[in-house]
């Protein structure tokens, strides 16, 4: 008898196609039984690509016709709320792509609904499952860099037009949050996860860089936390390369971490030690690349772990790695940033 959870996907765009569907299909604990997508050609294309039995033009129809255990909400940010609330109302566990709605008020309502119904609502902050970021968190918790003095977070990528399906223009809508809610949410959430610090005050500057679109594309902020740790967050769409990097400066050392490497500097670090560290890292990267290339599951390990954690939280009631509390705290910070911005066009 098939004991896997029946899952549906709402929104068959880029995040569903590239990340969630591959990780769901590679996980024996889930069977993807249906999907919902407004765009007709995309709906048919994805259904065929991933062999999804039933696809619907709206999530309302899907939720009305299917008996599901779990649902993934992979819609544009401003559409999260209605889909999540509808799924929770039907008694279905939800994994909602970040940033879990566009307003703190909405995110709180979703969280309250999930609590009221005793259901799992998992925010899709996948970076919490990336090996290097987990290692950095461990090192900081263990005291390897002493007390944190300062943190700098950089998240730059080519932007939604290059990395996403060109037909999907929702990122350019003013009300969809721009760079702040797209990658800023990742940056803030990861900061909360790694440092366990809460941001008290933050202010920044921004630029709307795409002509004819009133959407923020570059943001730079400074903040201070409740424990007087200062730092900065820099976000940009339109950069020539992808960079998601954290610098955590402590009284006993510095950690610089991104997807590909983690560097730990302490007072006595010398060039030869760096050379041997680089060799070790190159070896690790090579092993990861081989593992990825030879894996049958095409989703990254972070999304695979996110999916597995979703299953474990539903069935074994273990604590989630990506928590609703931190998702709400992320929203608070994003709103503080938004309120503080001086905008340059």
């Amino acid at each position: 008898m098939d004991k896997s959870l029946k899952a549906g996907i709402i929104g068959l765009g880029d995040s569903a196609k590239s990340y969630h569907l591959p990780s769901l299909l590679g996980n024996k604990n889930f069977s993807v039984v249906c999907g919902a997508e407004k765009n007709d050609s995309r709906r048919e294309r994805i259904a065929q690509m991933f062999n999804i039995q039933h696809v619907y033009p709206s999530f309302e129809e899907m939720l009305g016709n299917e008996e599901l255990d779990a649902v993934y909400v992979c819609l544009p940010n401003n559409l999260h709320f209605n889909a999540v609330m509808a799924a929770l109302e039907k008694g279905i566990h939800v994994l909602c792509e970040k940033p879990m709605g566009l307003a703190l008020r909405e995110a709180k309502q979703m969280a309250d609904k999930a609590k009221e119904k005793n259901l799992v609502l998992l925010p899709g902050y996948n970076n919490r499952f990336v090996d290097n970021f987990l290692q950095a968190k461990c090192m900081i918790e263990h005291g390897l860099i002493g007390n944190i003095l300062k943190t700098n977070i950089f998240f730059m990528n080519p932007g939604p037009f290059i990395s996403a399906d060109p037909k999907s223009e929702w990122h350019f809508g003013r009300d969809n949050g721009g760079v702040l809610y797209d990658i800023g949410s990742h940056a803030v959430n990861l900061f909360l996860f790694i440092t366990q610090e809460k941001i008290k005050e933050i202010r920044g500057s921004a630029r709307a860089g795409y002509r004819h679109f009133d959407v923020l594309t570059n943001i730079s902020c400074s903040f201070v936390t409740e424990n007087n740790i200062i730092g900065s967050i820099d976000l940009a769409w339109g950069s020539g390369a992808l960079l998601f990097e954290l610098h955590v400066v402590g009284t006993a050392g510095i950690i610089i971490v991104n997807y590909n490497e983690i560097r730990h500097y302490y007072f006595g670090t010398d060039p030869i030690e760096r050379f041997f560290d680089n060799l070790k890292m190159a070896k690790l990267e090579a092993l990861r690349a081989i593992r990825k290339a030879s894996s049958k599951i095409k989703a990254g390990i972070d999304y695979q772990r996110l999916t597995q954690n979703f299953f474990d939280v539903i069935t074994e009631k273990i604590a989630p790695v990506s928590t609703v509390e931190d998702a709400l705290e992320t929203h608070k910070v994003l709103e503080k940033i938004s309120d503080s911005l001086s905008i340059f066009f």
Partner: protein
Amino acid sequence: MKPVVVVKKITNRKNKDDIRCAMFSIFNTLMPYIELQKNSIIVTKINLCLLIGPETGGTVDPFLVECLVDWLQVNYSPKIIYIAESDATHLDADMAFKILGWQDLFNNQENVKLLNLSKDELVEVRLNGKFFKSLQMSKTYMECDYLVSFAKLKVHEDTKISCILKNQFGSLPERLKIKYHPWIKEVIHDLNKVKMPDLCLVDGLVGMERKGPIRGMPKPLGLIIAGNNPVSTDIACSRTMGFPWRTVPHLNYCYKKGLGPAKFEIMGNNYIRNFRFRFVPWYTRLIKAGISFLTLKRKDG
């Protein structure tokens, strides 16, 4: 006095109540083995080598010294307790007391004072030492009734470990103590002989490995080690760090010269575990040895 060592591991090294309980438990266990009288003048020689906090593994945690002072006040009503350190190559002790928070710690205790050994009145001490025949030492330090040495559990690039015996090197009032490094074993021996610590405490809440005593990496352990003899305590420290104590030059030397026994009793219900401290990387040591060799050759040439 029977040589004893107490080792205590604190599960949650960030919980101040747990730390306080552990410290008091150690002191109470050691109480029958330390000859301390009421109303004494006590000097506590701490380890502050640089302007870095205890979380780096480099300096003694002020909270631990606070626990010591509280226990002494309750049990022995001391006349006065001095928290002492001297100036060093990279350190002004008075600056360290201010910046590292020591000055604010004992504000409401009139009988607790900070003492810069380099700025105290000096007395000449005659000594049949291995290096010194006579020494200029701090008057307060030499005339105290009871000496507590409070060290850090650290690796040392030059001496292998820096615990109780090495902490006493800092009792020399001179600032540029680095000039004694070529004869470090003998100097450490003499400074422990001229005034041997009566109570030895080692802060291993966060130790230091790699390029200690100042450029190393923190080694968070949650350990406190205490004893009533510097050689025995350092042997316990060395075993904890995973270094055979005979390979620690100054420790082996002090033992051979009769400063303390190698056999001691471990009190309480803790045992000495090897925490495998990492020493200076082999390639760094090779380069350092190479540079020393070339420097010597150039001087001879």
